[in-house]
Every structure is written in C-alpha cells, then in structure tokens.
C-alpha cells in the first residue's frame, strides 16, 4: 500500500468527544466514511485491506479442502480479540470448541524480536531491483509500544496463548453439531451481539464472531442451503447495527456453485485461501521464495460500507509465508527473473486476468 496515499486537503475532521474515546479503546481505529476498523490479527492483511476489518461487516473466507490455511486467519483473528479483551463468540463443527482456545497463538513481544526486518538475513550485498518494494517497508520505523495498546499484534504461531487471556472472559463457544437447525445458533449470536450495540453515545468494546467451516458435513444443516443463507443474511444485518465483526469460513467445494455465489455476494469482505502444491517445479520457476510459501491468499472483495467507491488493490493474490515458522506474513507475488536461456516468457501468476466474457468493444 505504499503507493496509495490519500490526498490530504486543508480541511481537518472535527472529531466529537465521543469519537475521541475511540482512540483510547485498544483495537479500534477510525476508518473512512464514518466507519471504524478492527484488526484482523495479521499485520499484512490489515495493510492490504486499508486498515483492518470494518466494524459492522461480514468477512467470509473460502476454504481450500486441501489445506487448513483458513485456520491461520481464524486463529490470528481470535487471538487479537482476546489480547484486546474483546468479547468473542466461536463456533465450529468440532467436538470440543473450547479446547481450540488452547491452540491460539500468543503475541510476540516487540522488545524481544525484531520481527519486521526480514531482509537483514537475506542478501545484504546484492540488491535486486525488481524486489525493491520490500525494502521500502523497512523505512517504517518500529517504536516500542506496550503490547496491549498496539492495534495489531504479531502472533507467534508456535507459542500457545496464555491462559489468563481466555479464562474468565466473555467467550462463547458453540458446537455447530448441536444446532439441528440454525435458529438456536442464530439466537445465541443475536444475544451475543446485543452486548455490543452501536450507538453514538458510548462506545462499547467491539465484539468478534468467528465461525469456522459453516456447512461442513458434520453439521445437520449442511444440506439445507436456504437455511444457511437465511442465517448468514440475518447475521449480516444484525452485525451491521452492532459494533462487531464476524468472520465465517466455508468450504465452497462442498456447495453448489449457485449457493457459493450467493454466500460470496453476502460477504462484505471476501477472501479465499489456496494450497500450494509441494515440489511444483513450474511454480518454483515462476515465483521467488516458492520454498517458503505455505499457501496463497486472494482478496476478492473489500468492504464498502457507506461508500460506493470500490477499493482497487495493487495486487489481489498474496503468498502466505511463515516467517521463521512463527509468524504469518503475506507478500506480493514476485515473478522470478526470466531465465535468459529459455526462450519463452512465463505469464506472471500474480496477474489478475479475469475470465469474464469479452465486451462488444473490447480491444
């Protein structure tokens, strides 16, 4: 997002007293058009989305059946909420959703690790021009801040979250298997969301809802597509009028294309994760850093609340890497330098060629 600087005019926004308190609530920050942002728990994703997840929006993640990368997104999202003491509702088709809390990552202390200087270990001498964008990021200096007051923490995926973050907290864990139809689940979500209503007078702590694998085969309602649509639609509308963000992951490969498209249209922010095959020689030739990649993340839609202007990203597909096997970073795909000896040129897999029908006057 280095190139997308908004134009600064001579007018400055006149913040009311109520909104000044927002800056004192950790984990919230102002967004454009009267919206507020919540951190996703992944620093790079926040940057890509322009600040984070918009409060009152519905985020949907399309899973890949071959790899559990959506869990990385859910884990970071939940951990961030717990670190900031935000109420959380977690639902999953697993037998023991509460146990999942023990696998959440712990925030890294910025004092111990310099997590941002990734390139220090890399080639210091020779800097290759086509990767220069990475080096621009280094100029954002890191200043020491208390971990609690940081908007987005860096999470160490190898270290589990300390108990005190999730014991005695307002955390609701729901087994999706238990809800034969979705009405009971929906009622629990509604009562959770009534804790974080939206009004202008006092800003309450924002809430987070994380629903993992909605429509997975273990759930009884998995074949009732219309019920699921009604549920997601009601949840979306309830969330809009409350101070919360919901992240729902679902497996599109198990659904009919029509149903999957309806869910995609319902989402405010839509993201998909894809697995990267191991030892793919073609991809290895095409991309740099292929060996470190665990998956690909594509951003299909970014929430447009209170505005009609679409967010055009510089790139829509990012590689997911585990830096030092600890923290999740998202990087733009970089095409490897074309080998002079081989004659043909490779299409960059980071390009965004859509496969829509050609218009009548297409050049």
């Amino acid at each position: 997002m280095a190139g997308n600087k908004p134009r600064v005019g001579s007018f400055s926004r006149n913040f009311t007293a109520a909104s000044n308190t927002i800056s004192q609530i950790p984990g919230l920050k102002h967004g454009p058009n009267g919206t507020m942002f919540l951190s996703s728990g992944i620093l790079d994703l926040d940057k890509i989305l322009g600040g984070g997840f918009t409060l009152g929006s519905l985020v949907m993640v399309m899973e890949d059946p071959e790899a559990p990368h959506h869990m990385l997104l859910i884990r970071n999202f939940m951990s961030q909420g717990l670190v900031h003491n935000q109420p959380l509702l977690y639902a999953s088709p697993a037998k023991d959703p509460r146990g999942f809390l023990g696998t959440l990552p712990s925030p890294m202390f910025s004092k111990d690790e310099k997590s941002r200087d990734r390139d220090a270990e890399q080639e210091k001498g020779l800097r290759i021009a086509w990767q220069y964008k990475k080096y621009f990021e280094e100029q954002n200096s890191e200043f020491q801040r208390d971990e609690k007051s940081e908007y987005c923490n860096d999470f160490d995926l190898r270290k589990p979250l300390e108990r005190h973050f999730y014991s005695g907290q307002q955390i609701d864990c729901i087994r999706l298997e238990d809800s034969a139809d979705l009405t009971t689940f929906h009622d629990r979500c509604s009562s959770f969301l009534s804790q974080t209503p939206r009004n202008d007078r006092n800003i309450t702590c924002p809430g987070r809802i994380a629903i993992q694998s909605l429509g997975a085969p273990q759930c009884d309602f998995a074949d009732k597509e219309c019920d699921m649509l009604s549920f997601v639609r009601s949840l979306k509308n309830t969330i809009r009028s409350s101070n919360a963000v919901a992240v729902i992951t679902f497996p599109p490969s198990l659904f009919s294309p029509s149903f999957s498209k309806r869910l995609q249209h319902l989402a405010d922010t839509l993201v998909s994760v894809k697995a990267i095959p191991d030892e793919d020689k073609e991809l290895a030739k095409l991309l740099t850093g292929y060996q470190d990649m665990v998956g690909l993340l594509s951003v299909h839609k970014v929430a447009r609340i209170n505005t009609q202007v679409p967010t055009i990203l510089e790139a829509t597909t990012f590689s997911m890497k585990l830096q030092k096997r600890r923290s999740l970073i998202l990087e733009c795909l970089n095409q490897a330098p074309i080998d002079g000896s081989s004659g043909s040129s490779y299409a960059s897999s980071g390009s965004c060629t859509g496969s829509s029908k050609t218009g009548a006057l297409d050049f």
Partner: protein
Amino acid sequence: MDVQVPNLLDDALGGGGRVVLIEDCVETSGAFVLHHFLKRSLSPNSSDAVIFLSFSQPFSHYDRILRKMGCNLVVRRDNKRLLFFDLLMLNSLGREEEKTSEDLLLSLYEKVHKAVEICSSPARNITIIIDDVSLLEVAVNCLSNMVLDFLHYCYSLTAEFGCSLITLNHEDIYSSLDKSSLILQMEYHADVVIKAEPLSTGLATDVHGQLTVIDKGLGGGVCNSGKICNFQFRIKDNQIEYFYPGSRT
C-alpha cells in the same frame, strides 16, 4: 469525456413506465447504477417520487453515499419524495414455509401498492427500486416462483400507474442453473437490461468496469429496434464517470 454517454443511461428511463434490470457479479457491483437512478429521480428540478425497497443495506448507507453525490435523502424522505422500506430483517421464520412466505410477499405488495397510490395523487413519475432481488429470494426461503409472482404484480403496477421499476440482481448466481431461472425471466420482462462486468483484462484504478446497456426499444414509439451500448465507468465519491473505451484523457 464523452458528454453523450451519461444520457444513454438516462434515456433508458426516458418515458416512464419502463422496467429496468441491473445485473452484476461478485467482481463488479452494480449498486452504483442504483445510486445514479436514485439521484436522478430525486433531483431538485422535478417532483418525482421514489419507492425504495431495500433488502441489502440500511438507510444510513445510502444516505451517506447520496449526500456525497449532492442529494440529501433525509430531506427527501421528510418531503415524502422518497419512501424507504427497510426490509433487511424481513424473513419468514416458521414451520409452514409456503404459507408464511406467501403472506409476506402479499403484505409487501400491498405496502408497495399503497405507496404508489399515495405518491400518485399529485401526478408525477414514480420509480420503484428493489435492492436486491436475490436477497428477496432468501427472505422467502428461495421459493423463486413466489418471487416471480411478486415481480409480475410489480410489473402490472408499471402498466396501471405508469411508474418505472428498477431491480438489481446478481447474474452469476444463476449462471450455473438450468434454463428457466429467475434471472432469465427477469431479463425477458425488462425493457432495459444493464450489465455491470469487470474488464476482461482485470483490475485497474482508472477504469472500474464496463457497462452494457441493452435497450429493447419496446416503448412502441419511434424506436422499435433494440440498442446495445457498451462503455466503461469509473466510480468516484461524488459522481460516476462514463466513457467509451480509450476516450478518457
């Protein structure tokens, strides 16, 4: 910038009593066309009225967007030029699905009919806008036949009262379904179909997509032949720019 082009979109609504269908997809949202029509109908020069059935966004969303475009929806609502129905929470929860969905649609139609009657007492152009039909389907448990019936009743309103009907639906939901899908029926009944699609070359900051306007020319007047226009657009906060490909400076 081509000055003719915006008139293409406006000419589509020209005579009143037209049915317009807006189609979009996940990659490119067609909601901005609704905002354009909303602003046009509520312009200060005329006394036209708009009946807005919203299934997807609350009033505050449209209010903020239209305010940046120079149209104050709150004032229009107070002046009874805009009748906004917030139908976000409309759904038929209940065991006897068919009965309650039917009642739901019937009561909704009655509300719309009454609203049209109220608005037509000082004679003026009335526009009914539905955003969007796929969510209306979800609200009635995906019984698309009932949605079709409801739309037929709305079409009859256009004939009876001379009002226009503008609906938005998502074309990619139905593209994998069998032939007699809801979108095909809606396309058949519409006088004008406006399709918002992404560029086949992908994303661009200056061009947000392309619009194809198919005017069937069924107005019965001078122009009986259909017209197809294709142009590109760029969406900004305060306006939408339309231009032919390559003609932007």
